[in-house]
């Protein structure tokens, strides 16, 4: 009897091993199924995020969440329903090995105190048939096939991230915009005397979108001559939000907010050509900065402030032809394009603004913050790059060599560019008869320690 008990325990142990393997397989299948559904749902979400619309993305996201939850619930139910007890595992083994319920009977009889006298016979039959019902024969260790579905889903998700990305930007455009990064710093230095610095920008797009009505990007001259312009930064920032600041690259006073009248579409089409011309202008500035055409474009901040003062307020700015100004968004788009393309050097290149956007992104909400960042561009350019610093020194010398001869007197009528000796734009940009090219503001480089003095001077002038 003792031997029988041991053998019965052995049989029970082997059936328990079968039970554990089958339950493990059930868990694996359920988990793989749930994971497959979850990955497929994630694939759907990613695909729609890459290619679909925002509304569709919301629907897809919640559908994916619901599918994942349903799959999880189904997996739990599946595990619960497929969980085998020891007796059920014995029945499974009986069925698979063709034992006609011998194992289940033996297992149940092992718990009875008075076993049948025929039990040894049954035990012997089970022992003889052991190769048919052991754990390795009935449930070999293997990974369920459902894992292939999971792997396929994961592969689909991975491949989706490679092939379903949105179309990459045009390499030519990429190439055209990339080299401007380096000259842009010089360009800032070349043109920054008119603006001193760009106001903080919140984002790359905002950096490119130079809104003329914001006013917070106005030059010191503007603020100095126009109290309204001085108050403008805070107002404009509060009004425009994220578009409020960061547009100091534009010369509000000289353009009068109407510099974007040539049409964004046309300018966009001419962009590569404009870039080339801009490159040439930068090269001229770097290599032959003593060219009269370049230096003559420099204008004093005083004239800029005057022009700005002559310009109508931002609320009722009108084009030179008298037509009302377009909405601010349209103007922003126009300036975004124009800021890249204007060859006359009055505009800061977008990459220039982009370069400055990171450092000054936080100071866009208030006018004071914008004002405190006025000299940041020049300072950072000087501190960040020795070459740029040298270039700044060179440009400072240029400013000294080309003094205020181009600076008109206060109250005098605006002088056309040709009348002032400013050559026609090299890119052949044509102006209307009433239009004059923006006179580049010529400003001296003010070191930070002298900033207070400059402010005091202009304030007194006011």
């Amino acid at each position, binding site marked *: *009897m003792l031997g029988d008990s041991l053998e019965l325990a052995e049989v029970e142990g082997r059936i328990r091993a079968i039970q554990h393997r089958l339950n493990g397989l059930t868990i694996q299948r359920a988990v793989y199924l749930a994971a497959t559904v979850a990955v497929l749902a994630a694939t759907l979400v990613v695909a729609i995020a890459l290619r679909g619309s925002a509304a569709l993305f919301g629907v897809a996201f919640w559908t994916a969440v619901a599918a994942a939850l349903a799959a999880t619930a189904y997996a739990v139910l599946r595990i619960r329903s497929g969980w085998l007890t020891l*007796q059920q595992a014995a*029945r499974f083994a009986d*069925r698979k090995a063709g034992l*006609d*319920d*011998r194992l*289940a*009977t*033996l*297992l*149940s*009889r092992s718990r009875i105190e*008075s*076993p*049948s*006298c*025929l*039990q*040894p*016979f*049954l*035990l*012997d*039959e089970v022992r003889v048939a052991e190769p048919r019902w052991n754990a390795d024969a009935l449930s070999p260790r293997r990974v369920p096939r459902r894992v292939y579905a999971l792997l396929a889903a994961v592969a689909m998700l991975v491949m989706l991230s490679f092939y379903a990305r949105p179309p990459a930007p045009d390499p030519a455009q990429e190439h055209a915009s990339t080299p401007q990064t380096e000259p842009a710093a010089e360009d800032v230095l070349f043109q920054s005397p008119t603006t001193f610095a760009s106001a903080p920008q919140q984002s790359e797009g905002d950096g490119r979108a130079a809104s003329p009505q914001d006013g917070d990007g106005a030059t010191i001259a503007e603020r100095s001559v126009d109290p309204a312009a001085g108050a403008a930064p805070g107002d404009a920032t509060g009004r425009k939000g994220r578009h409020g600041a960061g547009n100091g690259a534009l010369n509000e006073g000289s353009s009068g907010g109407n510099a974007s009248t040539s049409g964004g579409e046309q300018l966009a089409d001419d962009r590569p050509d404009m870039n080339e011309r801009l490159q040439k202008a930068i090269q001229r500035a770097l290599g032959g900065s003593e060219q009269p055409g370049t230096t003559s474009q420099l204008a004093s901040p005083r004239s800029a402030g005057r022009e700005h003062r002559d310009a109508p307020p931002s609320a009722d700015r009108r084009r030179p032809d008298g037509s009302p100004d377009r909405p601010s968004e349209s103007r922003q788009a126009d300036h975004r394009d124009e800021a890249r393309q204007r060859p006359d050097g009055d505009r800061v290149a977008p990459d220039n603004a982009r370069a400055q956007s990171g450092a000054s992104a936080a100071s866009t909400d208030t006018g004071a913050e914008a004002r405190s960042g006025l000299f940041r561009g020049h300072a950072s350019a000087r501190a960040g790059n020795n070459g740029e610093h040298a270039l700044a020194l060179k440009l400072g010398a240029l400013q000294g060599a080309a003094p205020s001869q181009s600076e008109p007197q206060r109250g005098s009528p605006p002088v056309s560019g040709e009348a002032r000796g400013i050559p026609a734009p090299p890119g052949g940009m044509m102006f209307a008869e009433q239009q004059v090219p923006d006179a580049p503001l010529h400003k001296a480089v003010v070191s930070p320690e002298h900033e207070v003095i400059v402010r005091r001077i202009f304030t007194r002038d006011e």
Partner: protein
Amino acid sequence: MTERTPPAVEADATATEQPPAPSPRSIGTRVAAPRAAEAQRLDADSARALVDDFHDTFARLRAELAKVIVGYGDVIEEILIALFSGGHVLIEGVPGTGKTLIVRTLGQALNLSFNRIQFTVDLMPADITGTRLLLEQDGHRELVFARGPIFAHVLLADEINRATPKTQSALLEAMAERQVTAAGTTYKLPPPFFVLATLNPIEMEGTYPLPEAQLDRFLFKVLLPYPSGGEMQRIIGSTTSAAVPQVSPLLPPRKAAARIEELKALVREVMVAPHLEEYASALVRATIPRNSKFAPRGPTLLPADVEINRYVSFGSSPRGGQALLLGAKVRALLARRVNVSYEDIDRVAVPALNHRLVLNFAARADDVDPRALIQRLLDAAKRLHR
């Protein structure tokens, strides 16, 4: 009205007063001994020998009956299963199909006492059980109990539905209790006590259908159809020739009853797994209509069957479940197994349950066969096998 075999009656009386003691050397004795001790002594080979002995005995008995009974192999097997299960069999068949021949041949092959009672309307209970007679012996009179024809190992109750219910109930007590009470004295019937009753489905006029309580006492109800063409030809040829086939007894006369009892005890040792007991229980419960006020409560493995609800007034009693398991055990031994399987239960479900379904008027109007209803249940229960 009774047909007796005098030697059998004598042996019967002996068996009643002095039951034959089983031989300690026989294999079957080990089964009859206390089970706990025997279980320790039996090894696998001895247990296998017991199973083989049962299988051989059964096969020889069936072959011996086949010498006389042409065809009806399934009927003979079911009768033998009932015999070794310790139950009684109700055979329903038209006259002339060999019902009496089967029972008589079985008695001869087993070398057991055999009596036949032809039930008629005027048959009284005392005609079956026996009566007390006033005998004068040595100058003084005394009452002596004269045993009736029921005191036999194998009893054929022919056309049992022609007797009155009073007489039928006398047989009822004997079948259930395996004892007879006459004039306040109880007499044990000699084991094995095996009753085969026949029902004549025709000439129903003047008959008394068996009450459900009495039907429930029968382990199996076997249908004896007309023989097929080939069987009919062989029956005609063999029974009309000069050489009448003879049955040779398989067991010695004094040990036959004990041998049968040993084999019956072996059947009880066959093991049944709990889920198979549950399966048999579910089958029995499925025969009970849900709209019955006696319907069982609680969940069942098998859903309610529409046909059962429509045509059945009362389903099977727990005796049906007992019949299922006992018959399944015999079938397991016939398959040289010591455990019951689903197939064993299914094979005996129809003969074990068909007479326990009480059909309603709608079923009789639609000529519904209770066997078909049970077969529906078995088909529905196939899913439980997995």
